[in-house]
């Protein structure tokens, strides 16, 4: 026995490992498949052994074979075995194999649940990590449901390595198990402010991914992301956030306004191309969402275009590509700014890189104008000539057509030219887009009446020349054009010069080689031509010609009667008989022309493609109702035994059905007739108006036929589009000359006053009049068309399930299922698992707590609090905030429900409306005086550059006030209720200001304080710690130009102290000032950030500085300066950091902290206001709050902990504070005191 084991292990040494397998495959190049199949046999043997190492080795080899395309799903169970090994080495092999080949259809996957759960809670972080990584690849709805809670716990793991993986995998869990999104979301949100940058980045990643699909649900996170954007220095995070904002701005234009400034600053400051590019992209999105060309944003557009130009001109092809890509986005809304770079884009058309050429083509689409269309298309036609490879050429072709036909042929001034272009394009070999050209021809001929004469002539030539017929099957695509040509010639045959010749061309034997649907059109239109010919000859007593025509048809049509195509055959035989009959009549000298042409009378109107869909459903018509009774279950069951015994009964019942149906049907038929009569879009048989055409002026210069064989794209006997360029130029010049003459006359009459009239230089768009008096018939729509229906969304999109409102508070039933000891037979997870879950969870918690209690039973009081607190978190979310979801800004505006969710909404509104500019803040600080008091009397007077914004702000304020009142009422009510309860649910954990809002709205606050001011400029500033760097603070200064002059060349300089230094660019001396990266037009304000490095943060300090700037008025410019003192308070070194109550308790118990205290008397403000103020002005966060007592926490940039215990009683507030740095604490307390002494 023992010998056997030893032998086994020696054998094992000579088993093939992965390297051997790979080597073997490389050595058997000629019979690889055979070699591998023997290897697979070996692997199967190895998998049968008990030794886990052997199994793992086998699985490892299988993973490799999977990559080569071999199915390894048969080994799924062995993979699970290896996954459950206790050794990390093997476990990892197992999970890797599973991640490569498991999927939702793998049945053994349900065996893994417990193993994965075990690994997730393993003490070894790499076991957990490997399980998470594996799970991310093969998570199924069942796994997601069963493990969601475990993963959520891991999101607060002590190790950032686990936290970031857990956060990331939550996205997959949400996708598979959407119910988990709401319960898990608060924690996910929390992770946005995780101290570890990796975790933070993961959370941003997940939320961005979620928000991309359902942006409106994440609008309320905008302030948080905004904060992250301005504080983060991780480019990955920044890129994600900026991309996210790009998705959010279309929903909230005010957000865009707020974003422009920091984004432009980033564009100026960043050196990372990727970041710059994403900023530009988002600025573009913002500009699109603002749509209306606001004057002060033209600078941003210019900036973007200018930066993109730099990208496009770069030698790096990647940047060039991206530059073009972004440019095409600007194009949609601001074509003018892009058009000025036409040269550059045309240049890119010649690039050797196809991706870049395609991008440039996209851009061309928007660059055309009436003026340059011909020129651009000419250039493209040259490219069509040169292009090798059909894909690119096809792309060119579609682009040419797109460009010309865009917005209803807006830019085409000469349709003859366009028809010629289309005809030239038919020379393309092997294109797939023949039908595109054909549909353009049809569209133009039908909708532009003036062009029909010309079009018909061209089409007749196409039919005649036959070059499209000669090609082999490869040219199949292009022969579609003949479809259009034949139809146009037939339908508008009255324009034909020689219908007989065309008729003959259409009946050539070669036509029979065309595809069936084209032949059918040929046959039908031959009949139309026949009618025309008859009519022509009718008057002219020349009966012979007419009879010849009949004879021709009778001779040629049998060819089509034999066609294999049903449609062709049917039409041909029908027409053949008709012609035979006509011939008989002709021989009797009967006048038939009138009657024959009556067959084809009536004009075709272009109908919009969506018209049918938009016909509204008439009242009383239920489209979903059964026309016949649905087959009942019993009936279908009867179906089988029918042969055995046929019963009478079913028959009877069916007969009854029919009776009912017939009545119903008759009724419906009547209704339908009525409907048709009323509907103008049913082609009615009433004799239509005669086809009336205006004579097209300008048709006289149909170009002379010109044969030049050196030009490859020329169709012999066809006009050349190029001639039109010249003609057009001449025409325009003539027009211009005419106009000038007129102008001169006018001027003379007007006594040529008014100084200089700007010489019209290059003609503007409007000056170009189309060559033809063209009326483009618009497509018809039903009169009462329904508004646009835009449900293009893919119903199978997994993200649809994630369209969940996240602002709504959690209901009791929304809990993640938690494992129970005995899992009941499959029940629906929400209802049942939850009930279990809660109790189970509660039990677990309480038992844990008991243990803790035993261990340290000193602070009973605190424990109780904690317990209560936990309770709250587990069982019920912070007081129900609202019943109604915040959909978007609109809904809040429309209905402003008296619920307090609108508080949250107005939070966002407030954040959005109060730009960091002083005036609105001032306004906000005194809402009652300046805004609420302002009556509606003068809302229409545009005071500001942005009157509507102000107005909306006012409206909002009013609404807020209203809400306040209503809320107060509600609150009082609520309080009664609450006292009855015994006051348990009032505690708030980790509350920030927002959550306090529920009680009574806070007065708006701002941290910006005045730095200095003179008659030109005003500066306000705020100081924030830098989370990433413990020795830096960021000073944001808002400069506001108060004068009527332009302020430029601003330089910001500070006298450094030993402790604090302004961060200057490398190479600058410590006395140099920093140039403020913008200029200020009159009345404008903008924000700049300056980074200071500090060494010691325990003392507040002041730095003296100067701002120098140049005031530029119309006639002069002066140098000015303004001195200021920057006050670095100790508060500004603190950073709002959330803290859990247990961590907080531990911190306090540790005994490292020195304490100090403070009493504030005669303070008359609600407690939550007090807390909110401390939170806001001094960067604290509430850890826990019970009645009139709260613990708060903050951390300095250098990691000092600051803990406060705030109590209030009879207008006296006492603050007990602890901190590991006594002098810092003393200073902070002083500052808090100061804050409250001011109010």
């Amino acid at each position: 026995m023992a010998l056997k084991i030893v032998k086994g292990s020696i054998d094992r040494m000579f088993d093939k490992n992965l390297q051997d397998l790979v080597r073997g495959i490389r050595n058997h190049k000629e019979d690889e498949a055979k070699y591998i199949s023997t290897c697979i046999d070996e692997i199967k043997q190895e998998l049968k052994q008990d030794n886990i190492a052997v199994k793992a080795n086998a699985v490892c080899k299988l993973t490799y074979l999977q990559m080569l395309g071999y199915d390894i799903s048969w080994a799924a169970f062995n993979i699970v075995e290896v996954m459950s090994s206790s050794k990390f080495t093997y476990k990892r092999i197992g999970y890797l194999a599973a991640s490569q080949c498991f999927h939702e259809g793998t049945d053994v996957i349900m065996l893994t649940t417990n193993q994965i759960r075990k690994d997730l809670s393993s003490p070894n972080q790499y076991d957990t990590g490997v399980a998470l990584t594996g799970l991310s690849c093969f998570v199924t709805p069942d796994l997601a449901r069963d493990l969601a809670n475990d993963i959520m716990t891991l999101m607060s793991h002590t190790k950032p390595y686990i936290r970031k993986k857990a956060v990331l995998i939550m996205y997959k869990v949400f996708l598979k198990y959407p119910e988990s999104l709401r319960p898990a979301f608060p924690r996910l949100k929390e992770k946005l402010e995780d101290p570890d940058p990796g975790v933070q980045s993961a959370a941003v990643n997940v939320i961005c991914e979620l928000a991309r699909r359902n942006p409106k649900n994440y609008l309320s996170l905008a302030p948080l992301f905004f904060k992250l954007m301005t504080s983060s220095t991780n480019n990955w995070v920044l890129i994600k956030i900026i991309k996210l904002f790009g998705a959010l701005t279309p929903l909230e234009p005010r957000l865009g306004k707020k974003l422009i400034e920091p984004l432009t600053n980033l564009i100026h400051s960043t050196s990372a191309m990727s970041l710059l590019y994403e900023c530009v992209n988002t600025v573009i999105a913002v500009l699109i969402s603002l749509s209306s060309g606001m004057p002060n944003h033209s600078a941003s557009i210019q900036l973007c275009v200018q930066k993109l130009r730099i990208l496009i001109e770069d030698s790096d092809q990647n940047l060039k590509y991206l530059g073009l890509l972004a440019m095409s986005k600007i194009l949609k809304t601001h074509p003018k700014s892009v058009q000025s770079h036409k040269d550059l884009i045309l240049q890119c058309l010649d690039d050797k890189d196809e991706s870049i050429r395609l991008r440039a083509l996209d851009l061309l689409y928007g660059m055309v104008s009436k003026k340059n269309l011909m020129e651009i298309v000419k250039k493209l036609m040259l490219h069509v000539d040169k292009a090798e490879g059909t894909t690119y050429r096809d792309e060119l072709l579609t682009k040419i057509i797109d460009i010309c036909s865009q917005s209803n042929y807006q830019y085409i001034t000469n349709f003859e030219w366009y028809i010629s272009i289309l005809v030239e394009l038919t020379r393309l070999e092997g294109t797939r887009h023949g039908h595109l050209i054909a549909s353009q021809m049809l569209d133009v001929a039908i909708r532009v009446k003036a062009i029909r004469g010309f079009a018909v002539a061209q089409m007749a030539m196409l039919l005649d020349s036959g070059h499209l017929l000669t090609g082999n099957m490869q040219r199949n695509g292009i022969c579609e054009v003949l479809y259009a040509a034949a139809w146009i010639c037939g339908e508008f045959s009255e324009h034909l010069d020689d219908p007989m010749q065309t008729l003959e061309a259409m009946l050539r034997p070669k036509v029979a080689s065309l595809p069936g649907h084209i032949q059918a059109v040929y046959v039908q239109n031959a009949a139309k031509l026949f009618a025309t010919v008859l009519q022509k000859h009718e008057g002219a007593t020349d009966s012979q010609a007419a009879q010849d025509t009949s004879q021709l048809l009778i001779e040629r049509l049998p060819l089509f009667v034999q066609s294999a195509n049903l449609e062709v055959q049917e039409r041909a035989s029908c027409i053949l008989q008709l012609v035979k009959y006509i011939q008989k009549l002709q021989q009797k000298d009967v006048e038939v022309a009138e009657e024959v042409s009556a067959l084809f009378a009536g004009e075709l109107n272009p109908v919009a493609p969506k018209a049918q869909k938009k016909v509204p459903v008439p009242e009383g018509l239920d489209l979903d109702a059964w026309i016949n009774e649905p087959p009942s279950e019993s009936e279908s069951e009867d179906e089988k035994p029918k042969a055995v015994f046929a019963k009478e009964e079913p028959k009877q019942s069916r007969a009854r059905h029919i009776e009912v149906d017939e009545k119903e049907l008759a009724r419906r038929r009547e209704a339908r007739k009525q409907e048709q009569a009323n509907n103008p879009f049913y082609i009615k048989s009433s004799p239509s108006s005669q086809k009336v055409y205006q004579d097209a002026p300008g048709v006289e210069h149909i170009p002379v036929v010109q044969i030049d064989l050196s030009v490859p794209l020329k169709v012999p006997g066809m006009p050349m589009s190029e001639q039109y360029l010249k003609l057009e130029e001449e025409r325009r010049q003539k027009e211009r000359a005419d106009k000038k003459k007129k102008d001169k006359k006018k001027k003379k009459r007007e006594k040529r006053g008014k100084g200089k009239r700007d010489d019209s230089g290059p003609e503007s768009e409007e000056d170009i009049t189309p060559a033809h008096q063209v009326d483009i018939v618009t497509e018809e729509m039903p009169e009462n068309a329904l508004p646009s229906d835009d449900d293009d969304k893919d119903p199978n999109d997994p993200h649809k399930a994630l369209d969940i409102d996240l602002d709504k508070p959690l209901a009791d039933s929304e809990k993640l299922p938690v494992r129970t000891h005995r899992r009941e037979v499959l029940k629906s997870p929400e209802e049942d698992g939850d009930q279990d879950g809660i109790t189970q969870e509660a039990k677990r918690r309480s038992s844990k707590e008991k243990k803790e209690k035993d261990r340290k039973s000193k602070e009973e009081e605190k424990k109780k609090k904690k317990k209560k607190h936990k309770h709250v978190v587990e069982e019920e979310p912070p007081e129900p905030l609202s019943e109604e979801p915040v959909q978007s800004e609109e809904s809040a505006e429309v209905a402003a429900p008296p619920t307090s969710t609108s508080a949250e909404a107005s939070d966002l509104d407030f954040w959005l409306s109060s730009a960091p500019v002083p005036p609105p803040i001032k306004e906000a600080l005194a809402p009652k005086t300046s805004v609420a008091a302002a009556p509606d009397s003068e809302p229409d007077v545009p005071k500001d550059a942005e009157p509507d914004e102000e107005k909306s702000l006012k409206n909002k304020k009013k609404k807020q006030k209203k809400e306040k009142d209503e809320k107060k009422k509600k609150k009082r009510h609520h309080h009664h209720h609450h006292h009855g309860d015994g006051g348990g649910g009032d505690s708030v954990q980790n509350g920030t200001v927002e959550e306090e809002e529920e009680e009574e709205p806070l007065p708006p606050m701002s941290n910006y304080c005045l730095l200095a001011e003179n008659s030109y400029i005003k500066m306000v500033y705020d100081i924030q710690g830098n989370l990433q760097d413990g020795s830096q603070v960021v000073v944001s200064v808002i400069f506001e130009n108060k004068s009527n002059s332009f302020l430029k060349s601003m330089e910001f300089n500070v006298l450094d102290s030993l402790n604090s230094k302004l961060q200057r660019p490398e190479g600058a001396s410590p006395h140099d000032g920093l140039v403020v990266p913008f200029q200020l037009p009159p009345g404008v304000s903008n924000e700049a950030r300056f980074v200071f490095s500090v060494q010691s943060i325990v003392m507040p300090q002041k730095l003296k500085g100067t701002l120098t700037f140049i005031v530029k008025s119309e006639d002069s410019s002066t140098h000015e300066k303004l001195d200021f003192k920057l006050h670095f308070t100790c508060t500004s070194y603190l950073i709002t950091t959330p803290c859990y109550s247990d961590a907080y308790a531990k911190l306090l118990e540790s005994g490292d902290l020195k304490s100090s205290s403070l009493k504030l008397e005669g303070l008359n403000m609600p407690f939550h206001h007090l807390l909110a103020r401390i939170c806001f002005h001094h960067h604290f966060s509430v850890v826990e709050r019970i009645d009139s007592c709260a613990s708060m926490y903050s951390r300095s940039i250098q990691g000092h902990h600051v803990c406060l215990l705030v109590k209030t009683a009879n207008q006296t507030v006492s603050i007990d504070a602890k901190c590991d740095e006594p002098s810092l604490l003393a200073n902070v307390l002083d500052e808090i005191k100061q804050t409250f002494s001011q109010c």
Partner: protein
Amino acid sequence: MIKAILIFNNHGKPRLSKFYEHYNEDIEQQIIRETFHLVSKRDENVCNFLEGGLLIGGSDNKLIYRHYATLYFVFCVDSAESELGILDLIQVFVETLDKCFENVCELDLIFHVDKVHHILAEMVMGGMVLETNMNEIITQVDAQVKMERSEAGIAGAPARAVSAVKNMNLPEMPKNINIGDISIKVNLLLQRL
């Protein structure tokens, strides 16, 4: 989201394939072939983005690739990813491989595809970027290698000896097919990571 990560050589032989959406093996091979076909016919010094990989769904997707000596590194991503960011990520990936294998060459990838998977798992998880800091990635990878070693302990020694003997029979084992110039211009993103 990253939809797939593929590494193949100049002849289209797959060296690593990681799909973040499930396809069966045949379709995976088809995707690899198609991607190779698309990528290999492009010149050097054209842009590294390609639209229209037909198999990995939809028009939203892009192929972003880099070519190093004998290997193509191809990421198929959707529009949520920043193009330049992914290019940098590929660079980080290759540099990490270079550090972990000490002068990485194609052979390393051929014989140690499992290791490459483990390294990749520290960078990208379930199609989302997990970590971009090279030092952090290497720390985690090394820690796991150490764990593996300690688990193998004495038991692993004979196996290692055997594999050394096996390698001795391989005189033609080429050592220096370096992956080549990995110091391709990085878009400055790395500098600030």
